[in-house]
């Protein structure tokens, strides 16, 4: 059994005004794509930056590829790739020159042409970085994380600001990285992205991890929700049940007996999105939801 790529035990981080991370534990296995989800201010970026060695932790144990990132050991820096939001992008050089520049700081960099290709910057490689659009700038950040050919890659909101095609391309790149055996830790606000890419996700809120698991399994164990339109009142009804078979039987028999079709019927287990919203909902928002439903 290989040691995990990332191990976090009871991690705390306090800023003067707020305790941003309040005791979280998780592990990321080698070769895994792991996602951190959670609303704004949940502490995702703080956690990632501590793992990168960019920020110091207040308490807890952190191990990245067997090293303490707080010490910023050089061997670790050689093996880790980071998306720095906008950091290190000199304005007066071209995309290619910039990537070439940072590639020279790593012992075994990835081929610059390949990085340009992977990040979808082919058409822009001879443009000055300051003339790039917002989304192209983000692609460049992404490219910078890959240029050192790291075995562990941190991606903080890697596709925010990407157009839909670019997002798909970035997903493909992340998948390629995973196939190459790289470990990826990403944060995202797009649940479809987490669903598509992550082997496991952790949902954070207020500095704590609420749940961890494979996206498809997070809803497992929860009740099925059956939704249908009531033939008499015309209103949408819903009920949660452990065993949808019995309920469906009841509903369909009743409909058949009345000789009316059963409209708008769905049976669903909570999706990642449902689980996410359920867990992270603010109390006030939850209350208003109740009112609307009832």
């Amino acid at each position, binding site marked *: 059994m290989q040691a995990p790529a990332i191990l976090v035990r009871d991690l705390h981080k306090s800023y003067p005004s707020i305790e941003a991370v309040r005791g979280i534990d998780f592990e990321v296995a080698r070769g895994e794509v792991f996602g951190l989800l959670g609303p704004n201010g949940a502490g995702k970026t703080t956690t990632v930056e501590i793992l990168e*060695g*960019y920020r110091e932790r207040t308490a807890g144990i952190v191990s990245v590829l067997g090293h303490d990132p707080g010490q910023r050991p050089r061997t670790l*820096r050689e093996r880790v790739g980071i998306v720095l939001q906008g*950091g*290190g992008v*000199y304005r007066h050089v071209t995309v290619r020159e910039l990537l070439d*520049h940072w590639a020279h*700081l790593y012992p075994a960099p990835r081929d610059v042409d390949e990085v340009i290709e992977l990040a979808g910057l082919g058409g822009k490689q001879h443009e000055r970085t300051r003339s790039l659009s917002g989304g192209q700038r983000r692609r460049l950040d992404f490219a910078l994380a890959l240029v*050192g050919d790291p075995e562990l890659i941190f991606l903080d909101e890697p596709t925010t600001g990407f157009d839909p095609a670019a997002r798909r391309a970035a997903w493909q790149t992340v998948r390629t990285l995973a196939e190459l055996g790289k470990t990826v830790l990403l944060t995202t606000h797009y649940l479809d992205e987490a669903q598509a890419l992550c082997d496991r996700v952790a949902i954070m809120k207020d500095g704590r991890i609420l749940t961890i698991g494979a996206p498809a399994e997070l809803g497992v164990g929860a009740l099925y929700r059956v939704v249908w339109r009531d033939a008499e009142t015309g209103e949408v009804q819903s009920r949660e049940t452990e065993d949808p078979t019995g309920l469906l039987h009841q509903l369909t028999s009743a409909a058949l007996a009345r000789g009316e079709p059963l409209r708008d019927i769905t049976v669903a287990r909570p999706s990642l999105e449902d689980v996410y919203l359920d867990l992270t909902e603010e109390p006030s928002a939850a209350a208003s939801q109740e009112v609307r439903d009832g």
Partner: protein
Amino acid sequence: MRRAVGALLRKDLTAELRTFESIPAMTLFAVTTFVLFHFGLDRSSLEGDLAAGVLWVTLLFAAVLGQNRLFVAEEEQGGFDGFLLAPVDRTALFVAKALALFAFLVVVEIVAVPAFGLLLLGPDLLDPLPGLVLVLLLADAGIAIVGTLVAGLAIRTRARDLIAPLLTLPLLVPVVLAASEATAPLLAQAGAEGPPGRWLAILAIYDLTIGLVAYGVFDFLLED
């Protein structure tokens, strides 16, 4: 380390070639100062001590002008952040920046020294040129090292434009002194002698000492 220094230096020189942020300003400053001395001293020809003093003080101030911009791109465009996380020692950054400032100074002097010869200098510049080049290179090295060290120290402070010259000028008194002493006999009316070896040695020793100190402490300077 070599590769990193090379990459950083190339990046800085490329940026300077595209933006012309430092060298033209430094050169213009030096030449303008010579013009001002020309009228201010009300003498069309200087020689010896006075000529050497005017030359070195002017070059020193021009260097301070360039020093202030040395780390601005790293600070404002996130170079420091990237650097912190990349597998290179920050001493590579120091070496590259010192080399860049040195290169800037050499380019400035290629224009400024002939201008000095035309505008202010009595004796001919051509005879003492080899000796003068030697003094210039030794002094430039000292100025580049101190300038880079102080610029790195000041960049994270709020009043960096003020702090950098305030620290640099006193630290460079030995350089200006030794360089002036070494230059004065070269610019004497009586006909140029070689530069005095004693002052060249002092310059070299200063460069070496301050270079080692800077190399040693630079890594700590950029800690948050």
